[in-house]
Protein backbone atom coordinates (compact mmCIF):
# COMPACT_ATOMS: atom_id res chain seq x y z
CA UNK A 1 0.00 0.00 0.00
CA UNK A 2 2.67 2.50 1.02
CA UNK A 3 5.71 2.60 -1.21
CA UNK A 4 8.63 3.56 1.01
CA UNK A 5 11.01 4.60 -1.77
CA UNK A 6 8.34 6.84 -3.25
CA UNK A 7 7.57 8.27 0.20
CA UNK A 8 11.26 9.07 0.66
CA UNK A 9 11.40 10.65 -2.82
CA UNK A 10 8.38 12.90 -2.17
CA UNK A 11 9.70 14.07 1.19
CA UNK A 12 13.20 14.53 -0.20
CA UNK A 13 11.88 16.51 -3.14
CA UNK A 14 10.19 18.94 -0.72
CA UNK A 15 13.00 18.94 1.86
CA UNK A 16 14.02 22.54 1.16
CA UNK A 17 10.43 23.70 1.41
CA UNK A 18 10.00 21.79 4.69
CA UNK A 19 13.24 23.27 6.03
CA UNK A 20 12.27 26.86 5.17
CA UNK A 21 8.79 26.43 6.64
CA UNK A 22 10.33 25.00 9.83
CA UNK A 23 12.83 27.85 10.12
CA UNK A 24 10.04 30.39 9.63
CA UNK A 25 7.87 28.71 12.26
CA UNK A 26 10.74 28.55 14.73
CA UNK A 27 11.59 32.23 14.16
CA UNK A 28 8.00 33.48 14.32
CA UNK A 29 6.85 31.19 17.15
CA UNK A 30 9.97 31.99 19.15
CA UNK A 31 9.50 35.74 18.67
CA UNK A 32 5.81 35.77 19.56
CA UNK A 33 6.30 33.59 22.65
CA UNK A 34 9.33 35.52 23.90
CA UNK A 35 7.37 38.79 23.72
CA UNK A 36 4.67 37.47 26.07
CA UNK A 37 6.43 38.20 29.40
CA UNK A 38 6.79 41.85 28.35
CA UNK A 39 3.34 42.26 26.77
CA UNK A 40 1.51 40.56 29.65
CA UNK A 41 2.69 43.31 31.99
CA UNK A 42 1.29 46.12 29.85
CA UNK A 43 -2.22 46.96 30.97
CA UNK A 44 -2.83 49.12 27.92
CA UNK A 45 -2.51 46.04 25.75
CA UNK A 46 -5.32 44.31 27.64
CA UNK A 47 -7.39 47.50 27.61
CA UNK A 48 -6.86 47.85 23.89
CA UNK A 49 -8.20 44.31 23.30
CA UNK A 50 -11.08 45.03 25.71
CA UNK A 51 -12.20 47.96 23.55
CA UNK A 52 -12.78 45.69 20.57
CA UNK A 53 -16.45 44.81 20.00
CA UNK A 54 -17.22 41.13 20.56
CA UNK A 55 -18.07 40.77 16.90
CA UNK A 56 -14.54 41.73 15.95
CA UNK A 57 -12.99 39.68 18.74
CA UNK A 58 -14.69 36.64 17.26
CA UNK A 59 -12.63 37.16 14.12
CA UNK A 60 -9.44 36.65 16.12
CA UNK A 61 -10.31 33.74 18.35
CA UNK A 62 -13.41 34.64 20.35
CA UNK A 63 -14.60 37.30 22.72
CA UNK A 64 -13.99 35.13 25.80
CA UNK A 65 -10.21 35.14 25.27
CA UNK A 66 -8.14 36.42 28.19
CA UNK A 67 -5.09 37.84 26.52
CA UNK A 68 -3.24 38.33 29.78
CA UNK A 69 -3.09 34.55 29.97
CA UNK A 70 -0.34 32.93 27.86
CA UNK A 71 -2.81 30.72 26.00
CA UNK A 72 -5.01 33.73 25.17
CA UNK A 73 -2.09 35.81 23.95
CA UNK A 74 -0.70 32.99 21.79
CA UNK A 75 -4.16 32.27 20.39
CA UNK A 76 -4.65 35.87 19.39
CA UNK A 77 -1.18 36.41 17.97
CA UNK A 78 -0.38 33.04 16.45
CA UNK A 79 -2.59 30.00 16.82
CA UNK A 80 -5.98 31.31 15.71
CA UNK A 81 -5.13 32.30 12.14
CA UNK A 82 -1.44 32.64 11.40
CA UNK A 83 -0.27 29.11 12.26
CA UNK A 84 -3.06 27.19 10.47
CA UNK A 85 -2.57 29.50 7.49
CA UNK A 86 1.17 28.74 7.31
CA UNK A 87 0.74 25.00 7.68
CA UNK A 88 -2.17 25.02 5.23
CA UNK A 89 0.03 26.83 2.68
CA UNK A 90 2.56 24.04 3.03
CA UNK A 91 -0.15 21.35 2.78
CA UNK A 92 -1.60 22.95 -0.38
CA UNK A 93 1.80 23.16 -2.00
CA UNK A 94 2.71 19.59 -1.02
CA UNK A 95 -0.61 18.18 -2.27
CA UNK A 96 -0.22 20.06 -5.55
CA UNK A 97 3.36 18.85 -5.94
CA UNK A 98 2.53 15.14 -5.46
CA UNK A 99 0.14 14.82 -8.40
CA UNK A 100 -0.81 17.99 -10.29
CA UNK A 101 2.72 19.40 -10.57
CA UNK A 102 4.15 15.93 -11.26
CA UNK A 103 1.60 15.60 -14.07
CA UNK A 104 2.47 19.02 -15.46
CA UNK A 105 6.23 18.48 -15.36
CA UNK A 106 6.00 14.98 -16.82
CA UNK A 107 7.44 13.01 -13.90
CA UNK A 108 4.08 11.38 -13.13
CA UNK A 109 4.11 9.84 -16.61
CA UNK A 110 7.39 8.05 -16.01
CA UNK A 111 6.44 7.04 -12.46
CA UNK A 112 3.07 5.57 -13.39
CA UNK A 113 4.47 3.78 -16.43
CA UNK A 114 6.23 1.58 -13.87
CA UNK A 115 4.51 -1.20 -11.96
CA UNK A 116 2.94 0.81 -9.17
CA UNK A 117 -0.80 0.89 -8.48
CA UNK A 118 -2.29 4.36 -8.72
CA UNK A 119 -4.02 3.58 -5.44
CA UNK A 120 -0.61 3.04 -3.82
CA UNK A 121 0.71 6.25 -5.37
CA UNK A 122 -2.18 8.28 -3.94
CA UNK A 123 -1.97 6.64 -0.51
CA UNK A 124 1.79 7.15 -0.36
CA UNK A 125 1.30 10.80 -1.28
CA UNK A 126 -1.27 11.16 1.48
CA UNK A 127 1.12 9.58 3.99
CA UNK A 128 3.91 11.92 2.86
CA UNK A 129 1.52 14.86 3.24
CA UNK A 130 0.60 13.63 6.73
CA UNK A 131 4.27 13.35 7.69
CA UNK A 132 5.02 16.85 6.42
CA UNK A 133 2.06 18.44 8.21
CA UNK A 134 2.88 16.53 11.42
CA UNK A 135 6.49 17.69 11.32
CA UNK A 136 5.56 21.34 10.84
CA UNK A 137 2.95 21.13 13.61
CA UNK A 138 5.45 19.63 16.04
CA UNK A 139 8.08 22.21 15.16
CA UNK A 140 5.59 25.09 15.62
CA UNK A 141 4.09 23.91 18.90
CA UNK A 142 7.42 22.55 20.13
CA UNK A 143 9.00 25.96 19.64
CA UNK A 144 6.31 27.61 21.77
CA UNK A 145 6.72 24.96 24.47
CA UNK A 146 10.51 25.20 24.54
CA UNK A 147 10.56 29.01 24.65
CA UNK A 148 7.84 28.96 27.34
CA UNK A 149 9.94 26.55 29.37
CA UNK A 150 13.08 28.72 29.22
CA UNK A 151 11.17 31.96 29.95
CA UNK A 152 9.12 30.38 32.76
CA UNK A 153 5.85 31.20 31.03
CA UNK A 154 2.89 29.63 32.80
CA UNK A 155 1.44 27.48 30.07
CA UNK A 156 -0.19 24.05 30.05
CA UNK A 157 2.03 21.64 28.10
CA UNK A 158 -0.79 19.12 27.94
CA UNK A 159 -2.96 21.87 26.47
CA UNK A 160 -0.22 22.56 23.90
CA UNK A 161 -0.17 18.92 22.84
CA UNK A 162 -3.97 18.86 22.58
CA UNK A 163 -3.80 21.98 20.46
CA UNK A 164 -1.07 20.37 18.29
CA UNK A 165 -3.42 17.47 17.57
CA UNK A 166 -6.19 19.92 16.73
CA UNK A 167 -4.18 22.05 14.28
CA UNK A 168 -2.64 18.94 12.74
CA UNK A 169 -6.06 17.40 12.04
CA UNK A 170 -7.41 20.69 10.66
CA UNK A 171 -4.57 20.91 8.16
CA UNK A 172 -4.64 17.22 7.36
CA UNK A 173 -8.27 17.65 6.28
CA UNK A 174 -7.48 20.76 4.24
CA UNK A 175 -4.40 19.05 2.73
CA UNK A 176 -6.50 15.97 1.97
CA UNK A 177 -9.02 18.13 0.11
CA UNK A 178 -6.18 19.62 -1.91
CA UNK A 179 -4.72 16.19 -2.65
CA UNK A 180 -8.11 15.20 -4.02
CA UNK A 181 -8.15 18.39 -6.11
CA UNK A 182 -4.62 17.56 -7.26
CA UNK A 183 -5.76 14.11 -8.43
CA UNK A 184 -9.06 15.24 -9.94
CA UNK A 185 -8.39 18.64 -11.49
CA UNK A 186 -6.12 19.78 -14.28
CA UNK A 187 -3.52 22.11 -12.88
CA UNK A 188 -1.59 23.35 -9.88
CA UNK A 189 -3.43 26.69 -9.92
CA UNK A 190 -6.76 24.92 -9.50
CA UNK A 191 -5.42 23.01 -6.50
CA UNK A 192 -4.37 26.24 -4.77
CA UNK A 193 -7.71 27.80 -5.65
CA UNK A 194 -9.57 24.93 -3.97
CA UNK A 195 -7.37 25.13 -0.87
CA UNK A 196 -7.53 28.90 -0.47
CA UNK A 197 -11.28 28.99 -1.11
CA UNK A 198 -11.94 26.23 1.40
CA UNK A 199 -9.75 27.86 4.04
CA UNK A 200 -11.12 31.38 3.57
CA UNK A 201 -14.75 30.31 3.25
CA UNK A 202 -14.57 28.09 6.31
CA UNK A 203 -12.89 30.79 8.41
CA UNK A 204 -15.38 33.40 7.26
CA UNK A 205 -18.43 31.21 7.89
CA UNK A 206 -17.07 30.36 11.35
CA UNK A 207 -16.69 34.08 12.11
CA UNK A 208 -20.24 34.76 10.89
CA UNK A 209 -21.65 31.81 12.85
CA UNK A 210 -20.01 33.08 16.03
CA UNK A 211 -21.95 36.32 15.60
CA UNK A 212 -25.17 35.34 13.85
CA UNK A 213 -26.95 32.06 14.53
CA UNK A 214 -28.29 31.80 11.00
CA UNK A 215 -24.84 30.66 9.82
CA UNK A 216 -24.43 27.93 12.42
CA UNK A 217 -25.86 25.06 10.41
CA UNK A 218 -23.49 25.79 7.56
CA UNK A 219 -20.61 26.24 9.98
CA UNK A 220 -21.13 22.77 11.42
CA UNK A 221 -20.11 21.28 8.09
CA UNK A 222 -16.88 23.25 7.74
CA UNK A 223 -13.49 22.60 9.37
CA UNK A 224 -13.03 25.82 11.36
CA UNK A 225 -16.12 25.06 13.44
CA UNK A 226 -14.08 22.29 15.07
CA UNK A 227 -10.98 24.43 15.55
CA UNK A 228 -10.90 26.48 18.77
CA UNK A 229 -7.32 26.86 20.03
CA UNK A 230 -8.14 28.78 23.21
CA UNK A 231 -10.81 26.33 24.36
CA UNK A 232 -8.60 23.36 23.44
CA UNK A 233 -5.70 24.68 25.51
CA UNK A 234 -7.72 25.88 28.50
CA UNK A 235 -10.81 23.71 28.87
CA UNK A 236 -8.76 20.78 30.11
CA UNK A 237 -10.17 18.09 27.88
CA UNK A 238 -9.22 16.68 24.53
CA UNK A 239 -11.53 17.75 21.71
CA UNK A 240 -12.84 14.42 20.50
CA UNK A 241 -15.53 16.19 18.51
CA UNK A 242 -12.75 17.75 16.42
CA UNK A 243 -11.15 14.35 15.92
CA UNK A 244 -14.53 12.85 15.01
CA UNK A 245 -14.90 15.50 12.30
CA UNK A 246 -11.37 16.04 10.94
CA UNK A 247 -10.16 12.45 10.83
CA UNK A 248 -13.05 11.06 8.74
CA UNK A 249 -12.82 14.14 6.50
CA UNK A 250 -9.13 13.45 5.90
CA UNK A 251 -9.81 9.76 5.26
CA UNK A 252 -12.71 10.55 2.92
CA UNK A 253 -10.55 12.92 0.89
CA UNK A 254 -7.71 10.38 0.79
CA UNK A 255 -10.19 7.81 -0.55
CA UNK A 256 -11.54 10.28 -3.09
CA UNK A 257 -7.94 11.01 -4.14
CA UNK A 258 -7.42 7.31 -4.85
CA UNK A 259 -10.64 7.10 -6.88
CA UNK A 260 -9.89 10.30 -8.81
CA UNK A 261 -6.33 9.27 -9.70
CA UNK A 262 -7.49 5.85 -10.85
CA UNK A 263 -9.81 7.49 -13.36
CA UNK A 264 -7.45 10.22 -14.45
CA UNK A 265 -5.74 10.30 -17.83
CA UNK A 266 -2.08 11.10 -17.38
CA UNK A 267 -1.33 13.79 -19.93
CA UNK A 268 1.10 16.67 -19.46
Amino acid at each position, binding site marked *: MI*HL*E*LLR*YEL*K*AKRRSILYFCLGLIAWGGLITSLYPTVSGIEAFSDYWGQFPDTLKNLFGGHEINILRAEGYITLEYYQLFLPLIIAAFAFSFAAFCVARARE*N*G*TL*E*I*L*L*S*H*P*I*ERRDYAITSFVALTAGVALLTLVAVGTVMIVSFFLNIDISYAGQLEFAASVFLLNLGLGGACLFASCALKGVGQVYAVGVTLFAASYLVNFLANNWTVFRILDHGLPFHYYDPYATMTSGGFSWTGVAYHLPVAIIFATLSVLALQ*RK*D*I*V*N
Partner: protein
Amino acid sequence: MSVYALETRGLTKYYGRHIGINGLDIQVRPGEIFGFLGPNGAGKTTTLRLLVGLLRPTSGSAEILGLDMVRQSLDIRRRVGYIPGEVRLFEHLTGEETLNLLASFRGKQASGMLKELLDRFELDPSRKVSEYSSGNRQKLAIIQAFMHDPEMLILDEPTSALDPLIRHSFYALCREFKQRGRTIFVSSHILPEMEQVCDRVAIIRKGKLVAVEDVAELARKKLRHAEFTLAEEPRGGIPRFASATVQRVNGLRFRADIRGEMDAFVKELSRLPIEDLQVNHASLEEIFLEFYRDEADDSP
Protein backbone atom coordinates in the same frame (compact mmCIF):
# COMPACT_ATOMS: atom_id res chain seq x y z
CA MET B 1 -5.26 -15.43 -25.65
CA SER B 2 -3.66 -13.56 -28.51
CA VAL B 3 -0.73 -15.12 -30.37
CA TYR B 4 0.64 -11.64 -30.89
CA ALA B 5 2.93 -9.81 -28.50
CA LEU B 6 0.65 -6.83 -28.95
CA GLU B 7 -2.81 -6.75 -30.45
CA THR B 8 -5.24 -3.84 -30.44
CA ARG B 9 -8.87 -4.19 -31.48
CA GLY B 10 -10.76 -1.07 -32.42
CA LEU B 11 -8.76 0.92 -29.91
CA THR B 12 -10.27 4.38 -29.63
CA LYS B 13 -9.47 7.38 -27.48
CA TYR B 14 -11.28 10.68 -27.44
CA TYR B 15 -10.20 13.73 -25.43
CA GLY B 16 -13.61 15.28 -24.94
CA ARG B 17 -14.76 15.90 -28.48
CA HIS B 18 -11.28 15.71 -29.93
CA ILE B 19 -10.12 12.47 -31.39
CA GLY B 20 -6.88 10.89 -30.23
CA ILE B 21 -7.04 7.60 -32.08
CA ASN B 22 -9.97 5.95 -33.79
CA GLY B 23 -10.54 2.20 -34.18
CA LEU B 24 -6.91 1.20 -34.21
CA ASP B 25 -6.24 -2.45 -35.14
CA ILE B 26 -2.61 -3.47 -34.91
CA GLN B 27 -0.92 -6.83 -34.49
CA VAL B 28 2.72 -7.02 -33.48
CA ARG B 29 4.37 -10.43 -33.62
CA PRO B 30 6.60 -11.68 -30.85
CA GLY B 31 10.24 -10.86 -31.47
CA GLU B 32 9.73 -8.19 -34.10
CA ILE B 33 10.62 -4.53 -34.14
CA PHE B 34 7.49 -2.71 -35.18
CA GLY B 35 7.69 0.91 -36.26
CA PHE B 36 4.79 3.26 -35.66
CA LEU B 37 5.02 6.20 -37.99
CA GLY B 38 3.06 9.38 -38.27
CA PRO B 39 3.36 13.15 -38.19
CA ASN B 40 2.94 15.18 -35.02
CA GLY B 41 -0.59 14.93 -33.66
CA ALA B 42 -1.37 11.73 -35.57
CA GLY B 43 -2.03 9.76 -32.37
CA LYS B 44 1.29 7.96 -31.81
CA THR B 45 1.83 9.16 -28.25
CA THR B 46 -1.83 8.58 -27.38
CA THR B 47 -1.51 4.96 -28.54
CA LEU B 48 1.66 4.35 -26.56
CA ARG B 49 0.22 5.96 -23.42
CA LEU B 50 -2.86 3.76 -23.72
CA LEU B 51 -0.66 0.69 -23.94
CA VAL B 52 1.18 1.44 -20.68
CA GLY B 53 -2.01 2.34 -18.82
CA LEU B 54 -1.48 6.09 -18.60
CA LEU B 55 -4.72 6.73 -20.50
CA ARG B 56 -8.03 4.90 -20.35
CA PRO B 57 -9.48 3.91 -23.73
CA THR B 58 -12.84 5.32 -24.80
CA SER B 59 -13.58 2.01 -26.50
CA GLY B 60 -11.80 -0.99 -27.94
CA SER B 61 -9.27 -3.23 -26.29
CA ALA B 62 -5.69 -4.36 -26.43
CA GLU B 63 -3.67 -7.31 -25.28
CA ILE B 64 0.01 -7.04 -24.51
CA LEU B 65 1.96 -10.25 -23.90
CA GLY B 66 -1.40 -11.96 -23.56
CA LEU B 67 -2.59 -9.57 -20.86
CA ASP B 68 -5.55 -7.23 -21.02
CA MET B 69 -4.41 -3.61 -21.32
CA VAL B 70 -6.91 -2.26 -18.78
CA ARG B 71 -7.53 -5.07 -16.31
CA GLN B 72 -3.94 -6.33 -16.13
CA SER B 73 -2.10 -3.08 -16.59
CA LEU B 74 0.12 -3.60 -13.55
CA ASP B 75 1.30 -7.01 -14.82
CA ILE B 76 1.96 -5.49 -18.22
CA ARG B 77 4.02 -2.70 -16.71
CA ARG B 78 6.10 -5.29 -14.84
CA ARG B 79 7.05 -6.88 -18.16
CA VAL B 80 7.55 -3.88 -20.43
CA GLY B 81 9.94 -0.97 -20.60
CA TYR B 82 8.66 2.44 -21.67
CA ILE B 83 10.31 5.63 -22.87
CA PRO B 84 7.98 8.64 -22.94
CA GLY B 85 7.91 11.02 -25.87
CA GLU B 86 9.06 13.98 -23.84
CA VAL B 87 11.62 12.80 -21.35
CA ARG B 88 11.21 14.83 -18.19
CA LEU B 89 12.88 13.44 -15.12
CA PHE B 90 13.38 14.32 -11.47
CA GLU B 91 15.54 17.42 -11.53
CA HIS B 92 16.67 17.26 -7.91
CA LEU B 93 17.79 13.63 -8.05
CA THR B 94 21.03 12.25 -9.44
CA GLY B 95 20.97 9.75 -12.29
CA GLU B 96 21.65 6.96 -9.79
CA GLU B 97 18.88 8.07 -7.43
CA THR B 98 16.48 8.25 -10.37
CA LEU B 99 17.34 4.72 -11.45
CA ASN B 100 17.09 3.44 -7.85
CA LEU B 101 13.66 5.05 -7.41
CA LEU B 102 12.34 3.58 -10.66
CA ALA B 103 13.97 0.20 -9.97
CA SER B 104 12.28 0.09 -6.56
CA PHE B 105 8.92 -0.39 -8.32
CA ARG B 106 10.17 -3.60 -9.90
CA GLY B 107 11.70 -5.38 -6.93
CA LYS B 108 14.31 -8.04 -7.63
CA GLN B 109 14.14 -7.97 -11.41
CA ALA B 110 14.93 -4.29 -11.32
CA SER B 111 18.38 -3.66 -12.64
CA GLY B 112 20.01 -6.77 -14.06
CA MET B 113 21.45 -4.90 -17.04
CA LEU B 114 22.13 -1.59 -15.33
CA LYS B 115 25.92 -1.67 -15.24
CA GLU B 116 26.20 -2.89 -18.81
CA LEU B 117 23.90 -0.12 -20.01
CA LEU B 118 25.70 2.60 -18.07
CA ASP B 119 28.99 1.49 -19.63
CA ARG B 120 27.47 1.19 -23.06
CA PHE B 121 25.97 4.68 -23.06
CA GLU B 122 28.84 6.22 -21.06
CA LEU B 123 26.50 7.92 -18.61
CA ASP B 124 27.79 9.29 -15.31
CA PRO B 125 25.00 8.44 -12.84
CA SER B 126 26.50 10.45 -9.98
CA ARG B 127 25.49 13.80 -11.53
CA LYS B 128 22.19 15.51 -10.90
CA VAL B 129 19.59 15.23 -13.62
CA SER B 130 19.36 19.03 -13.71
CA GLU B 131 23.01 19.08 -14.83
CA TYR B 132 22.45 16.60 -17.67
CA SER B 133 22.28 17.65 -21.29
CA SER B 134 19.14 16.66 -23.19
CA GLY B 135 21.11 13.80 -24.75
CA ASN B 136 22.14 12.47 -21.35
CA ARG B 137 18.55 12.72 -20.11
CA GLN B 138 17.51 10.64 -23.09
CA LYS B 139 20.22 8.10 -22.28
CA LEU B 140 18.90 7.90 -18.71
CA ALA B 141 15.40 7.33 -20.08
CA ILE B 142 16.72 4.54 -22.32
CA ILE B 143 18.58 2.90 -19.44
CA GLN B 144 15.55 2.95 -17.15
CA ALA B 145 13.45 1.30 -19.87
CA PHE B 146 15.97 -1.46 -20.69
CA MET B 147 17.61 -2.12 -17.31
CA HIS B 148 15.21 -4.82 -16.15
CA ASP B 149 15.55 -6.74 -19.42
CA PRO B 150 11.85 -6.39 -20.33
CA GLU B 151 10.00 -8.79 -22.61
CA MET B 152 8.64 -5.87 -24.60
CA LEU B 153 9.67 -2.28 -25.14
CA ILE B 154 7.30 0.56 -25.90
CA LEU B 155 9.35 3.50 -27.10
CA ASP B 156 8.03 6.92 -28.03
CA GLU B 157 10.50 8.65 -30.35
CA PRO B 158 13.44 7.34 -28.35
CA THR B 159 16.24 8.83 -30.42
CA SER B 160 14.97 12.38 -30.70
CA ALA B 161 17.73 13.95 -28.56
CA LEU B 162 20.57 11.56 -29.35
CA ASP B 163 23.63 12.29 -31.46
CA PRO B 164 24.22 9.93 -34.44
CA LEU B 165 26.81 7.83 -32.61
CA ILE B 166 24.60 7.13 -29.60
CA ARG B 167 21.63 6.65 -31.92
CA HIS B 168 23.60 3.92 -33.69
CA SER B 169 24.44 2.35 -30.35
CA PHE B 170 20.78 2.50 -29.32
CA TYR B 171 19.60 0.71 -32.45
CA ALA B 172 22.32 -1.90 -32.00
CA LEU B 173 20.85 -2.50 -28.53
CA CYS B 174 17.39 -2.85 -30.05
CA ARG B 175 18.66 -5.43 -32.51
CA GLU B 176 20.29 -7.39 -29.69
CA PHE B 177 16.99 -7.39 -27.81
CA LYS B 178 15.22 -8.58 -30.91
CA GLN B 179 17.75 -11.41 -31.35
CA ARG B 180 16.91 -12.49 -27.81
CA GLY B 181 13.25 -12.71 -28.75
CA ARG B 182 12.16 -9.38 -27.27
CA THR B 183 9.48 -7.34 -29.00
CA ILE B 184 9.89 -3.63 -29.66
CA PHE B 185 7.10 -1.20 -30.53
CA VAL B 186 8.70 2.08 -31.47
CA SER B 187 7.17 5.31 -32.68
CA SER B 188 9.15 7.75 -34.73
CA HIS B 189 9.03 10.16 -37.58
CA ILE B 190 12.67 9.58 -38.51
CA LEU B 191 11.96 7.28 -41.41
CA PRO B 192 15.44 6.24 -42.56
CA GLU B 193 16.06 4.91 -39.04
CA MET B 194 12.84 2.95 -39.05
CA GLU B 195 13.79 1.51 -42.43
CA GLN B 196 17.06 0.22 -40.99
CA VAL B 197 15.78 -1.25 -37.77
CA CYS B 198 12.12 -2.26 -38.17
CA ASP B 199 10.64 -5.47 -39.51
CA ARG B 200 7.27 -3.85 -40.16
CA VAL B 201 5.88 -0.35 -39.97
CA ALA B 202 2.41 1.02 -39.42
CA ILE B 203 1.48 4.46 -40.63
CA ILE B 204 -1.07 6.47 -38.69
CA ARG B 205 -2.74 9.70 -39.68
CA LYS B 206 -5.34 11.73 -37.81
CA GLY B 207 -5.81 8.87 -35.36
CA LYS B 208 -6.49 6.26 -38.02
CA LEU B 209 -4.29 3.48 -39.29
CA VAL B 210 -3.38 4.18 -42.92
CA ALA B 211 -1.23 1.16 -43.66
CA VAL B 212 0.81 -1.65 -42.17
CA GLU B 213 3.68 -2.80 -44.33
CA ASP B 214 6.53 -5.23 -44.12
CA VAL B 215 9.67 -3.12 -44.53
CA ALA B 216 11.36 -5.63 -46.83
CA GLU B 217 8.18 -5.89 -48.91
CA LEU B 218 7.84 -2.16 -48.96
CA ALA B 219 11.37 -1.87 -50.24
CA ARG B 220 10.53 -4.26 -53.06
CA LYS B 221 7.28 -2.58 -53.96
CA LYS B 222 8.24 0.94 -53.43
CA LEU B 223 8.60 3.72 -55.85
CA ARG B 224 11.75 3.82 -57.91
CA HIS B 225 13.12 6.59 -60.00
CA ALA B 226 15.06 5.99 -63.19
CA GLU B 227 16.92 8.55 -65.22
CA PHE B 228 17.84 7.54 -68.73
CA THR B 229 19.49 9.21 -71.70
CA LEU B 230 18.44 8.30 -75.23
CA ALA B 231 20.77 8.20 -78.22
CA GLU B 232 18.28 10.12 -80.33
CA GLU B 233 15.03 12.06 -79.96
CA PRO B 234 12.13 9.58 -79.81
CA ARG B 235 9.34 9.87 -82.28
CA GLY B 236 6.36 11.68 -80.77
CA GLY B 237 8.34 13.56 -78.10
CA ILE B 238 8.34 12.22 -74.53
CA PRO B 239 7.99 8.41 -74.60
CA ARG B 240 4.88 6.93 -73.00
CA PHE B 241 5.18 3.96 -70.63
CA ALA B 242 2.42 1.87 -69.05
CA SER B 243 4.70 1.09 -66.11
CA ALA B 244 5.97 4.59 -65.36
CA THR B 245 5.37 8.30 -65.62
CA VAL B 246 8.07 9.96 -67.72
CA GLN B 247 9.20 13.57 -67.74
CA ARG B 248 11.97 15.27 -69.70
CA VAL B 249 14.85 16.47 -67.52
CA ASN B 250 16.76 18.19 -70.31
CA GLY B 251 17.75 17.42 -73.89
CA LEU B 252 17.64 13.66 -74.36
CA ARG B 253 17.64 12.94 -70.61
CA PHE B 254 14.35 11.74 -69.07
CA ARG B 255 13.14 10.81 -65.61
CA ALA B 256 10.72 7.94 -64.99
CA ASP B 257 8.77 7.36 -61.73
CA ILE B 258 8.28 3.62 -61.81
CA ARG B 259 5.32 1.99 -60.08
CA GLY B 260 4.98 -1.72 -59.62
CA GLU B 261 7.29 -4.31 -61.15
CA MET B 262 10.65 -3.28 -62.51
CA ASP B 263 10.48 -5.98 -65.17
CA ALA B 264 7.66 -4.29 -67.07
CA PHE B 265 9.53 -0.99 -67.13
CA VAL B 266 12.78 -2.55 -68.38
CA LYS B 267 10.89 -4.31 -71.17
CA GLU B 268 9.27 -1.07 -72.28
CA LEU B 269 12.55 0.80 -72.01
CA SER B 270 14.39 -1.80 -74.12
CA ARG B 271 12.44 -0.66 -77.19
CA LEU B 272 14.24 2.67 -77.09
CA PRO B 273 17.87 3.46 -78.03
CA ILE B 274 19.34 3.80 -74.48
CA GLU B 275 22.67 5.53 -73.99
CA ASP B 276 22.68 5.71 -70.19
CA LEU B 277 20.44 4.44 -67.35
CA GLN B 278 20.45 5.14 -63.62
CA VAL B 279 17.90 3.64 -61.17
CA ASN B 280 17.36 5.06 -57.66
CA HIS B 281 15.15 3.66 -54.91
CA ALA B 282 12.83 6.09 -53.25
CA SER B 283 13.32 6.36 -49.50
CA LEU B 284 10.63 5.38 -47.03
CA GLU B 285 10.22 9.10 -46.52
CA GLU B 286 9.03 9.49 -50.08
CA ILE B 287 6.64 6.58 -49.59
CA PHE B 288 5.44 8.19 -46.40
CA LEU B 289 4.86 11.52 -48.11
CA GLU B 290 3.11 9.66 -50.87
CA PHE B 291 0.68 8.19 -48.34
CA TYR B 292 -0.11 11.59 -46.96
CA ARG B 293 -0.35 13.20 -50.34
CA ASP B 294 -2.90 10.55 -51.33
CA GLU B 295 -4.83 11.09 -48.09
CA ALA B 296 -4.78 14.85 -48.54
CA ASP B 297 -6.06 14.44 -52.08
CA ASP B 298 -8.92 12.33 -50.74
CA SER B 299 -9.96 14.88 -48.16
CA PRO B 300 -12.70 17.35 -49.13
